[in-house]
């Protein structure tokens, strides 16, 4: 049982990283993106291919995966300059489907529908981790979660964060204040994609296998739900959202009733949680954190004066 709970918290950690990345795009910058699973897929497959075909180590592969995902982030970030609202959402949705479709059909590299198996675990202090070493995995993944949290916190509390927020609140006003909105929007996409790439890389190494069916539209939706359910524009809330969504989807197994109840009930429960949450707490469980800019700016000024 302990192993199973550890496993769930490993998944929560991986999703939380991707969801915090998405939160930067959706929550802080206000751009609706439906392709986080696509970035995750790019990260996961890059790691899988590098580690199996090119026999690279995990840590190098992970960094390369993050950067390749962020390259695609730039690619999809550019259209955001022209598209708004639902049109942007559809463009990103299309992009996510393209990624999956290409992975499915590029047999020579991705092994098509079979996916890639036998991905070695990461080696750390001279030992190679298998997916059985759950305590070690928990530590590694939650270090990444913490790092992501502080990384985003730093961005948000800086000039960049204020620019992103300004864009979300009123793009035209932001640009007339001299904010280069194009740069910041692409930047948000690139960073969000990078984080998803890292999450994908961890996903591939932990599961030791990747398959194209995994990274479907529903996965993007699930990650979006994590960000919204906790509270948009709040990284801590996003982690809470990830906990809730993953726990909810594994609840029958945790309670040991998964073999008694019809399998569909699990999904129905997930749907119900979504609907009820939106009706009763559309701002999320925790909600957005309103930063006290006066205080932050004052601190910065006093830092400068020193």
């Amino acid at each position, binding site marked *: 049982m302990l192993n199973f709970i550890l496993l769930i918290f490993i998944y929560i950690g991986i999703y939380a990283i991707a969801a915090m990345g998405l939160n930067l795009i959706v929550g802080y910058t206000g751009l609706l993106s439906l392709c986080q699973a696509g970035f995750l897929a790019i990260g996961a497959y890059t790691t899988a291919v590098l580690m199996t075909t090119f026999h690279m180590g995990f840590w190098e592969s992970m960094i390369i995966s993050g950067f390749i995902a962020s390259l695609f982030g730039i690619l999809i970030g550019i259209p955001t300059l*022209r598209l708004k609202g639902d*049109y942007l959402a*559809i463009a990103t*949705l299309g992009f996510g489907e393209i990624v999956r479709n290409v992975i499915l059909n590029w047999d020579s590299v991705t092994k098509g529908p079979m996916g890639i198996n036998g991905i070695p675990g990461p080696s750390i202090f001279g030992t190679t981790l298998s997916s059985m070493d759950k305590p070690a995995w928990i530590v590694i993944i939650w270090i990444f979660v913490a790092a992501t949290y502080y990384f985003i916190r730093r961005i948000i509390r800086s000039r960049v964060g204020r620019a992103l927020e300004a864009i979300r609140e009123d793009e035209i006003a932001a640009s007339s204040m001299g904010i280069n909105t194009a740069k910041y929007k692409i930047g948000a996409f690139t960073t969000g994609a990078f984080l998803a790439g890292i999450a994908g890389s961890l996903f591939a190494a932990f599961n030791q296998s990747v398959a194209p069916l995994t990274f479907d539209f529903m996965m993007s939706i699930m990650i979006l*739900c994590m960000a*919204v359910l906790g509270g948009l524009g709040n990284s801590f809330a996003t982690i809470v959202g990830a906990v809730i969504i993953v726990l909810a989807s594994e609840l029958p197994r945790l309670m040991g009733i998964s073999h008694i109840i019809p399998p569909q*009930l699990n999904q129905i429960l997930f749907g119900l949680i979504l609907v009820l949450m*939106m009706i009763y707490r559309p*701002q999320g469980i925790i909600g957005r954190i309103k930063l006290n800019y006066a205080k932050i700016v004052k601190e910065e000024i006093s830092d400068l004066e020193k």
Partner: protein
Amino acid sequence: MNLFNIPSNELLQHLINGLTLGAIYSLIALGYTMVYGILKFINFAHGEILMAGTYAGYYFYYFLYDPSKGAAYTIGIFIAALVIAMIASAILGVVIEKVAYKPLRKAPRLAPLLSAIGVSIILANLAALFFGTKSKKFEYPFNNSSMDIGGSSITPNQLMILAVGLIMMAGLKLFVDRTRLGKAMRATSQNQPVAALMGINVNLIISLTFAIGSALAAVAGVLIALEYKVYPTMGTMAGLKAFIAAVVGGIGNISGAMLGGIILGLLETFGVVILGIPQGLKDTIAFSVLILILLLRPSGILMKNIREKV
């Protein structure tokens, strides 16, 4: 004639295939775009409303189906099944709106979207639970042998889907543009509070929109079920594609939905044929072109690109 590298004898057939596939997307997109036009939100459960109505029609038809009673009887119960499917979908659509969307009219934009996704997950799984995951065959009420057009073939049902799509489009346009209710709908879509001040019952108009949009979905569902069978996820992927089609045409625009659907169908068919690559890549080609179209016309093909003013 040899356009690109398609043999000329195949060209017409591909064109027919693309048009009929596109007509299916259009049919679903019409209902989608109508709801969007009024409420400005993506009703992700549209595909599942379509599925639920189709099941209602299917079971009615299935229990009364008896080929020995002659063609007129079969067509009669088919039309009755169609009406029942429309009523079932309309009721479901209105109920869903009241329960899952209405409390969210003032919530952040993402809330109704996620609520709709929740509803669609619930409906698809309820269907799987009660009706099983098996595909069920919806028998053609008429003889559906294909007809020959210049060496290519088309079936009566495919023609019907095209025709129904065009009729629905024209009917919807007339309704929205020419009737009092249509005018009230347009007013509601432009500004709900002001419409209410003008004496329009906004709640009623929204319910009506959902009822009509959902009934249209049921028509699409039944016609599609004849081609592709009835199963719990029948509306999911087709609904998603139809929605994309509606956006490309210019969401909220009725002719745009029709046009977008046809374009998507033709893209899925011709995209890979022209390039001579396997059909498995059709989504890549179709979605790439769609993103390009959006980049060139950021508000869809038939919508004016309204510049945001301060």
